[in-house]
């Protein structure tokens, strides 16, 4: 049956105008021309019109109307994307978010803020600066890029080395599906279990839904920052130095690099006065407590020199530091001075492969006779070679694209990914099949069909054709397999986690999840496996800095309900090649797929653990205020070595234990102790011991009661020998829960009463927990269809809420 609106766009346009008003709908030629492009220089056609909704409801109604009319919708932030993700095809409606710019109040206790998608990345940090906080993802386009765009592409940036990419800074999202329904990802805290829709939507490039508001995590501004600038006469040496920095167990917040060609462009643009006769310039930044920063800088300088740096200088003050970063962040724009066109690339390889890839790019450059200028997020193994050409010269243009494809092949040969942070868009559609396996691509297409059956949300992006000829399945590891140069470890699902962690710690690294048994017999999560860690999202009593294993899981092999083995992700620190099945499935139990093997990122292990016990006075109200202050202090601590934690004594609630990982230096734990004494008075007990002996104090008795995961503001509980626990929970703590996290309230039976409640998680010895039911607002119809996609015969566990008809 012919659709009246589709036959006649005037009817659609008048419907849209009714929703948006005259000023909210642009139909003129100028708008259609301008909005046909973004920063990628790619085009598909001319959009039908441009909608600029000024509230979330307008946006949803516009999407719903387009769905009804069968007209494609392309969501756009500020058009700073480099892969053509926001480029519309002929006749599509562009929905711009530039007028959705509301910023909620900063919650400085929970370190969160809710924003609309049109708010600019920089704007969030400016907004939070009065609270001493900032939004950590910092793509070079951050002054102009919108949060909505950052989420759609899962944007990275230099400081993602320490803090992680955009995904790791999202708590939850509100979004509109293709029907214009108001939906929620339903995640109150990032350690929540279940199929993680935040991970799925983040990086989906507007093909599954449109984000209408985002609850963002903020991080504390560091007490001290130091930035080193090093010049290398040899590019290989520079790449080797980047690997060396991290391999030595240093924890820089950023390791950035530009090659000579890029340095020349930046020099011409800004005249910083850098030497231009060097092969590479590298920026290394450390942040945190002054003494630690000073010590790290000293070690790093020596290391950089050892690796062949000709000169290492430190930014003298904040303005010099800002200049250095300006040089790095404006490098991209400065390439306009080098050539009229360039292929902008975004390959990423395992860290240890960086020097090899750098050498191979030199060969490719010579073989194809092209000019290449490169910027590197060197610490992440992510690089942006820009292959120059002039589109007016067809031969040059052909050679440039051939060289670009050769670089991508080289990265994939090294177990890398075609894109670390720019996204697939339309630009990388032809190379994505070189990376993705058949089964993975089939699942990704299946997800798209579930969320957008009519294919109206940003069609033609992300998904290569079904017959594209996908890559062979990558073999899963047979045993625990450390890749020390890459700082990763792969292991099959049945490998012992304790054994993995012990081997890692012998070399000074670990997967920083506090769950982990430090030996087989004692402590948390004993006897658990790698598969369990991934499936159940086991979280520890806060010795983890950023949150959960989701933040360190890079690669996953899993089996669908009907027995298809698939592989998702890559052993690299950043990867946005297609939907993020790895993190979507992490923590989803064994409802959708069975984990078979996984690759994790390794981080430096803390040197020691401090332990203090303070008495609590009997006055309940005073307790709450003091614990609040303590919690706020702990949440603001630098988490590079693992966040500190507090535990209110389970037995009496008359004392509080604080534990903090740190360095084995007088200035580190002493500083914390001084602060704690100021807050709580004199401790009754204090211990400092090497970190690998932490299990001596992490006894069942201690952790059996209360733990406040200070870095994630999650309350964890396990009440030994107490089923309901209501008599056991001190009134003061109950109040604290109410006050601090209104979305997580106490209940005698939290796992059934409160969806998403993850009590009992961290020390569940052999305990199998029922999968959480999704929170209100999470589309159960989608989840049910996802279940059919992953487990068509119902061979895997099926919780009750997944059965029956769509609600």
């Amino acid at each position, binding site marked *: 049956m012919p659709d009246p609106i589709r036959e006649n766009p005037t009817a659609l346009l008048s419907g849209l105008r009714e929703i948006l008003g005259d000023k909210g709908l642009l139909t003129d*030629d100028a708008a259609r021309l301008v909005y046909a492009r973004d920063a990628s220089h790619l085009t598909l056609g001319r959009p039908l019109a441009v909608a600029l909704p000024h509230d979330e409801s307008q946006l949803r109604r516009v999407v719903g109307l387009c769905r009804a009319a069968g007209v494609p919708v392309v969501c756009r932030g500020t*058009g700073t994307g480099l892969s053509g993700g926001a480029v519309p095809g002929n006749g599509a409606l562009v929905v711009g978010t530039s007028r959705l710019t509301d910023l909620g109040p900063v919650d400085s206790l929970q370190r969160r803020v809710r924003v609309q998608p049109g708010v600019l990345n*920089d704007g969030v940090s400016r907004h939070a600066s009065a609270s001493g906080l900032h939004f950590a993802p910092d793509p070079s*386009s951050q002054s102009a890029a919108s949060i909505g765009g950052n989420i759609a592409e899962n944007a990275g940036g230099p400081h993602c080395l320490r803090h992680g990419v955009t995904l790791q800074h999202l708590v939850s999202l509100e979004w509109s599906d293709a029907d214009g329904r108001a939906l929620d990802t339903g995640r109150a805290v990032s350690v929540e279990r279940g199929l993680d829709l935040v991970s799925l939507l983040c990086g989906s490039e507007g093909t599954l839904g449109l984000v209408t508001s985002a609850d963002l995590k903020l991080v504390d501004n560091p007490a001290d920052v130091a930035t080193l600038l090093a010049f290398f006469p040899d590019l290989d040496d520079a790449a080797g130095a980047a690997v060396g920095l991290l391999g030595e167990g240093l924890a820089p917040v950023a390791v950035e690099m530009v090659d000579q060609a890029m340095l020349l462009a930046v020099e011409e643009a800004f005249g910083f006065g850098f030497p231009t006769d060097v092969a590479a310039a590298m920026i290394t930044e450390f942040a945190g407590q002054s003494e630690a920063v000073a010590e790290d800088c000293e070690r790093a300088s020596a290391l950089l020199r050892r690796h062949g740096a000709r000169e290492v200088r430190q930014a003298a003050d904040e303005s010099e530091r800002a200049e250095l970063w300006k040089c790095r962040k404006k490098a991209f724009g400065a390439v*306009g001075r080098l050539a009229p066109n360039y292929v902008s690339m975004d390959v990423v390889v395992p860290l240890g492969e960086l020097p090899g890839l750098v050498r191979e790019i030199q060969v490719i450059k010579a073989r194809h006779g092209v000019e290449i200028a490169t910027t590197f997020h060197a610490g992440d193994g992510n690089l942006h070679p820009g292959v120059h050409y002039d589109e007016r010269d067809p031969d040059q243009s052909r050679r440039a694209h051939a060289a670009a494809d050769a670089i991508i092949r080289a990265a994939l040969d090294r177990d890398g990914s075609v894109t670390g942070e720019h996204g697939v868009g339309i630009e990388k559609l032809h190379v994505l099949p070189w990376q993705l396996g058949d089964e993975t691509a089939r699942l990704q297409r299946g997800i798209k069909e579930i969320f957008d059956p009519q294919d109206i949300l940003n069609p033609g992006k992300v998904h290569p054709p079904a017959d594209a000829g996908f890559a062979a399945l990558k073999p899963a590891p047979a045993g625990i397999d450390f890749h020390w140069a890459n700082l990763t470890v792969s292991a099959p699902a049945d490998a012992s986690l304790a054994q993995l962690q012990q081997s890692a710690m012998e070399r000074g690294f670990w997967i920083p999840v506090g769950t982990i048994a430090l030996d087989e017999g004692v402590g948390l999560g004993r006897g658990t496996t790698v598969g369990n860690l991934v499936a159940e999202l086991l979280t520890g009593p806060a010795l983890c800095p950023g949150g959960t294993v989701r933040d360190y899981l890079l690669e996953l092999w899993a089996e669908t309900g009907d027995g298809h083995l698939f592989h998702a992700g890559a052993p690299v620190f950043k990867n946005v090649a297609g939907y993020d099945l790895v993190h979507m499935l992490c923590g989803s139990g064994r409802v959708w797929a069975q984990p078979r093997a996984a690759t994790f990122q390794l981080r430096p292990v803390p040197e020691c653990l401090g332990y203090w016990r303070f008495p609590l006075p009997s006055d309940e109200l005073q307790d709450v205020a003091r614990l609040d202050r303590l919690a706020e202090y702990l949440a603001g601590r630098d988490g590079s070595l693992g966040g500190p934690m507090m535990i209110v004594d389970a037995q009496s609630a008359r004392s509080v234990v604080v534990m903090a990982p740190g360095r084995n230096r007088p200035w580190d734990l002493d500083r914390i102790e001084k602060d704690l004494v100021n807050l709580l008075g004199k401790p009754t007990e204090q211990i400092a011991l090497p970190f690998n002996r932490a299990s001596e104090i992490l006894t069942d008795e201690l952790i059996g009661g209360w733990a406040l995961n200070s870095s994630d503001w999650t309350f964890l509980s396990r009440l030994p020998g107490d089923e309901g626990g209501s008599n056991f929970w001190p009134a003061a703590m109950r109040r604290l829960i109410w006050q601090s996290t209104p979305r997580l309230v106490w209940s005698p039976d939290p796992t059934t009463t409160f969806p998403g409640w993850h009590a009992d998680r961290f020390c569940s010895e052999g305990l199998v927990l029922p999968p959480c039911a999704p929170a209100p607002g999470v589309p159960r119809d989608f989840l049910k269809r996802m279940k059919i996609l992953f487990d068509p015969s119902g061979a895997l566990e099926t919780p009750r809420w997944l059965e029956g008809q769509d609600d």
Partner: protein
Amino acid sequence: MTDPRPSSAVMDVDHLDELLRQCVQCGLCLPHCATWLATGNEVQSPRGRLLLLGELIRPSDTNTAAASDAFLQAFDQCIGCRACETACPSGVPFTLLEYGQLRATEVPPLRSGLPVPAVPGAVLRRMDQTAFLGFLSRVGDLVRGVLTVVAGKTWRRRLAGGPAGTGRLVRLLGSLPTSARSDTELVKMLDGLCGRETQLVGGSPNFVGLEIPDHLPSGPGVAFFRGCANAGLLPGTSRRLRDLLSASGCRLEEPGSQDCCGALATHTGRPGRAADLRRRNREAFAGALTDGTVIVAEAAGCSHELKEYGDDFRTGVVDAVVMLAGLDLPPMGSVPLKVAYHDPCHARHGQGIIDEPRKLLAAIGGLEIVEPAEPEVCCGSGGAWGLRYPELSDELGRRKAADLAATGADLVVTSNPGCLGQIADGLQVIAPDLPILPLTDLLWYAALLRIDSSRP
């Protein structure tokens, strides 16, 4: 001697095309562009305008007529603040492209192509005449007085109902500080803010003047460029600047045959008049240029426009703020206020003047400088632009006023009369208790405090 603009430079399509290809479409210009910030419409952004220009000179389809109309409209709505040029990492010469297009294509000259709505042409044509502006300024005082009596504090809102451009013009004039002419008013106002009472001595309170010490060594020679708006609308400020220059040892001369710099004529699409004014000023300052006398222009808009005359003027003309910052100013008293400086685009983007005004403020004892968010974004005055696009201009003025008010400042200062009126108007709506003054007035007051206290 080259004028970057096409009135004297020839630019062909190929050259334009080359320049345009420097734009990598990165979009970093967007948040610096006032019209994009106000509308959220990328057609009203530097990148959008350049994409349209590209379409115009290398058409990808046959619809160039439509593109050229859209282009005209988009470029007409550009304020010309040049914030995008400061922001652009690729160094795209936006203004050059904007003007270059006019020469290279058949499109009729833009600035004369579209009429200024509502403001009568007769008024507009005389906007660059000092005497007329002086008259307008007094009319503004009168109108404000009458309107306040008749309509109370809501006069601003009521004016919104009138013909847009005219209502806005009257409103802006009515917003200029009354201290612009009267020293007594200025001292009273700043005394009030500081919580002190300065006794004015020496003749008419309106012409206190700064005493020029006899022992000063002979300083640089200065040829003073009055500027029509300052002379007409802010005669007191103009005099105070001369006071400060003299008190710092400058030997002041004021070539009598000087005229408006021509910026307004250019903005309102009268290139003939602009060229005529330029010729007259060239004659008036020919002597200064040859004997190395510094030409000091008071308003940032004037110094910017004069520098565009050519290389000789670019090196010979110094903005008053830069001049003052390089002089040994008379000793200053303490002004215990939080002060926010608003950067006029003509200074910040046109001439790269950022540190100098802050250095001048930092020299005043007891004063705390506070920085507003988005200091690089235009206030939306734009000379005649604000009269053509009153709604957009109002929105930007209020946005700027809100940013300035959010600093917690006690006082805002700036150094261009257009910005002064625009922000004063915005502040009336956003933060009526936050005053704005020319930077010169604050410096003069601080110097006066010391002189006053040293007098018997």
